[in-house]
């Protein structure tokens, strides 16, 4: 009807204008007709969708629309192992940095002589926690070592049994680490495990606090140890790490399937929402220990780094809203919690990958949380000026052979220090350099493994390039504007631009690609601390 009336009216207009070749009018009418047809079609489309929802057809899986949706046209199809009950997300944004020195061979058991728990690994802890042991006292695995004076209920426990041999202090007498000289034969403090079926949440929380697994629960926003009073909206576990040279989580779960399932059961008790499991859909089907877990919600993720970051997964499944608090954990932590409930002991044994171009024999070792770096890399490094990193090259901490692995670290990366000058290095680099820029011929060699070095490849500058961070971050945030808001101390804007959804690891890749060499992670942490103090 409307089309006809429009055509009819147009006859008048023609008559008015003398019927000449009035292209403007004709084209306007044509545009109007096209828009009208489109409006009718999309209305019909929406009505069908609504009807479909009422009937209960999952519109995500079956496209009921008249038009194929954009995601159907351009996104990759989910791999066949992604079940109907699981979500599937594929991101095109990101960057996989390929580094030389990935581990090979069997997993070796490597018992380090010293282990440490480091208060500095926990964001927001007061610099001088109360140490409850003395140098020389004997501890079992699971005995408390210290607690935060601001939150005295949460115990931080020893990962191994042995003798406390040192309380190291850093700047301003802050305690940097509590070191335990490990026994050859591990003895464990035994815990009375509550029955998961019947236990009250309060008792469960108290048990977890007392047994030392509580600090494994990270709370977002701010990436701090979870609050003992509030229950989280949801709990998120990313079962894979997409960062360079990361440990393959399929190796971690192997043989620990029951503990992982138990850990997930415990976590479900702690939240009224869901436990979300982020699974790896980048290649082969992940380990059955992940895919067959029950009682949780599964989402598969494909794409490039940072696809394995839990922050990215949260943002794309159930984003953190204003007052929300969610908890996040890694695979290893879930297993340690699960083992506590299965075996009644704090068994902090972990896998650690020792990788990087400066490692002679890159390998994976089985050891305990907080192991001494020197013991793990002994006789395994090339004799050059090296940068030993506890963690990956994006988010790890610089350390030395005297240092220790962090609380949740399962990776040691060793690359070359890049403290050398390079003639016209900005124009004609001698060695291949990792970069997302098209000005390097890197795109021709997609499988090339870079050696990697710590040179900054340029000086720090003001923000100039735009859109660069967004191109590697599959999240709907504007990192550059957020950074500016943090620098300006604008709380409202910081919150609005999504600071609560981010932690350092989410922006690490942005920091890597930054042309202006901005310290994004540091700025973000300052912003998060400002927000936390404000709250």
């Amino acid at each position: 009807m409307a089309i006809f009336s429009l055509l009819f009216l147009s006859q008048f207009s023609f008559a008015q204008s003398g019927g000449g070749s009035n292209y403007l009018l004709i084209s306007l009418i044509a545009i109007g007709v096209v828009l009208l047809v489109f409006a009718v079609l999309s209305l019909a489309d929406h009505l069908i969708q609504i009807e479909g929802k009422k009937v209960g057809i999952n519109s995500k899986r079956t496209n009921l629309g008249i038009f194929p949706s954009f995601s159907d046209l351009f996104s990759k199809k989910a791999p066949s192992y992604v079940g109907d009950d699981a979500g599937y997300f594929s991101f095109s944004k990101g960057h996989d940095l390929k580094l030389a020195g990935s581990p090979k061979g069997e997993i070796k058991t490597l018992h380090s002589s010293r282990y440490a728990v480091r208060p500095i690994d926990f964001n927001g802890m007061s610099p001088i926690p109360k140490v409850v042991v003395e140098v020389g006292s004997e501890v079992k695995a699971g005995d408390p070592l210290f607690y935060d004076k601001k939150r005295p209920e949460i115990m931080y426990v020893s990962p191994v049994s042995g003798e406390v041999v040192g309380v190291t202090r850093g700047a301003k007498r802050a305690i940097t680490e509590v070191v335990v000289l490990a026994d050859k034969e591990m003895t464990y403090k035994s815990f009375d495990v509550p029955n998961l079926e019947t236990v009250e949440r309060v008792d469960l929380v108290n048990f977890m606090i007392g047994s030392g697994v509580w600090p494994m629960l990270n709370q977002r926003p701010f990436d701090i140890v979870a609050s003992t009073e509030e229950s989280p909206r949801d709990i998120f576990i990313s079962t894979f790490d997409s960062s360079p040279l990361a440990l393959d989580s399929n190796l971690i779960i192997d043989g620990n399937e029951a503990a992982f399932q138990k850990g997930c059961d415990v976590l479900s008790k702690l939240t009224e929402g869901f436990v979300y499991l982020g699974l790896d859909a980048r290649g082969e089907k992940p380990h059955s220990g992940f895919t067959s877990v029950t009682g949780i919600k599964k989402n598969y993720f494909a794409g490039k780094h940072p696809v394995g970051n839990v922050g990215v997964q949260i943002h794309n499944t159930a984003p953190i809203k204003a007052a929300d608090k969610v908890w996040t954990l890694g695979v290893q932590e879930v297993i340690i919690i699960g083992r506590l409930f299965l075996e009644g002991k704090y068994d902090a044994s972990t896998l650690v990958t020792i990788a990087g171009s400066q490692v002679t024999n890159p390998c994976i070792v089985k050891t305990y949380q907080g192991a001494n770096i020197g013991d793990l890399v002994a006789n395994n490094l090339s004799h050059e000026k090296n940068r030993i990193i506890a963690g990956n090259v994006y988010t790890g901490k610089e350390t030395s052979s005297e240092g220790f692995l962090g609380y949740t670290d399962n990776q040691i990366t060793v690359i070359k220090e890049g403290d050398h000058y390079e003639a016209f290095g900005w124009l004609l680099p001698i060695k291949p350099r990792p970069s997302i820029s098209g000005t390097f011929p890197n795109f021709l060699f997609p499988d090339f493994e870079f050696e990697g070095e710590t040179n900054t490849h340029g000086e720090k500058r003001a923000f100039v390039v735009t859109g660069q961070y967004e191109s590697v971050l599959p999240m709907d945030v504007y990192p550059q504007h957020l950074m500016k808001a943090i620098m300006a101390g604008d709380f409202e804007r910081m919150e609005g631009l999504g600071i609560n959804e981010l932690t350092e690891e989410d922006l690490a890749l942005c920091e890597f690609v930054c042309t202006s060499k901005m310290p994004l992670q540091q700025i973000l942490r300052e912003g998060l601390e400002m927000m936390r103090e404000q709250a």
Partner: protein
Amino acid sequence: MGLIDFFKKIEPDKKKSPFLHTLYDGFFTFAYTPNTVTKGGVHMRDGMDLKRLMVHVVIAMQLCYLFGTYNVGHQHFIAAGMYPGFLEGFHLKLVHGLIQMLPIFVVTHVVGLGIEFWFATKKGHAIEEGFLVSGALIPLIMPPDLPLWILGVSVAFAVIIGKEAFGGTGMNIWNVALLARVFVFFAYPSTISGDEVWVSGFDRLPNDETIAEEFRGVMAASYGWFHTDFANGLFGMLGLDTFRETITPMVDGYTGATPLAIAAKDGWDAVTSTYTPTQMWWGTIPGSIGETSKPLIIVGALMLIFTKVASWRIMVSMFIGGTVMAMILNAWGATPFMEVPWYYQMYMGSFLFAMAFMATDPVTASSTNTGKWIYGFLIGFIGMIVRVLNPAYPEGWMLAILFLNTFSPLIDHYVLEANMAKRLKHA
């Protein structure tokens, strides 16, 4: 590493002579990437830095430089009615082009970099690379005959008022190169608009007794000592054609008008009676130095897009914006200029050059991806309006880009507000 030791030895004292030290630091970091290593945060950094970024924009312009320089000479001789073939009188055209071009390039850089160095010293920070690109762009967007002192003043204006006053590289609101041009445009309009300025080397002869009757008051070329003594001496030895000692009057009927100027008066038919579309496409027409050759600009633009140095979103949306407006004007068709087919609008003037090199300046453009679409589209849209509908300004891109530079923070503001509203709505 002998050279680097030498460099280290001659490093001036920072306290005693800060200006020299800043200068030294600028040149040293140019010659050697510094040995700084990552500290805190990420342990590895992308190989890209601002120097590399900027120099790639400059590289993308090099074809325009080569062609532009030659075309200055070419247009000069065309106007004189000599060597009509493109490659005829190659050496003369090239030398004339270089004689025009090099002083412009040198003055731009001496003034611009001088001010940059001075401000870097005053503020105690390293020399930043911003002027690498601005300095390379400015010569390309100026008419070949621009008096050098005007050029110097305009560059000083652009760098001091347009950039350093806002805090240096990365902080400016308006495109520095365009500010220099807009300064000339409004302060010395006779040097940058009209028909005569686009062909170099011609001046209006005085009406006095010293010259023959027929040449009085006409436009004619006069050569300096460099042409007549140095270049001619060289060419004479090689047995090539030389610059004529005598004045060379313009050929009858030659106006030097750009296609836009003709189109604004008499429409497309008049343009094609003077210049063929092929000529306009390849760029052997009068105009600003670097803007005339479309294929070479497209090569530069593709390089910028491919290397991800410049935003393809801005280029595409600006193209769409210009096209849409040109089509609307076609449909309207009230004046001869409006009836110029929309695709030929791209052949004339500096649309493509502005699209590839001017609108894409990341500092002054919108910083959000959504904003870039809007920003580019509006530049194309408004620039075409200025070009076609405004009788006072022959070309619209300079003004449209500066206008949208002004509004890009506003565009970003609303994009960010939308993002924030979405996040808070979740709550």
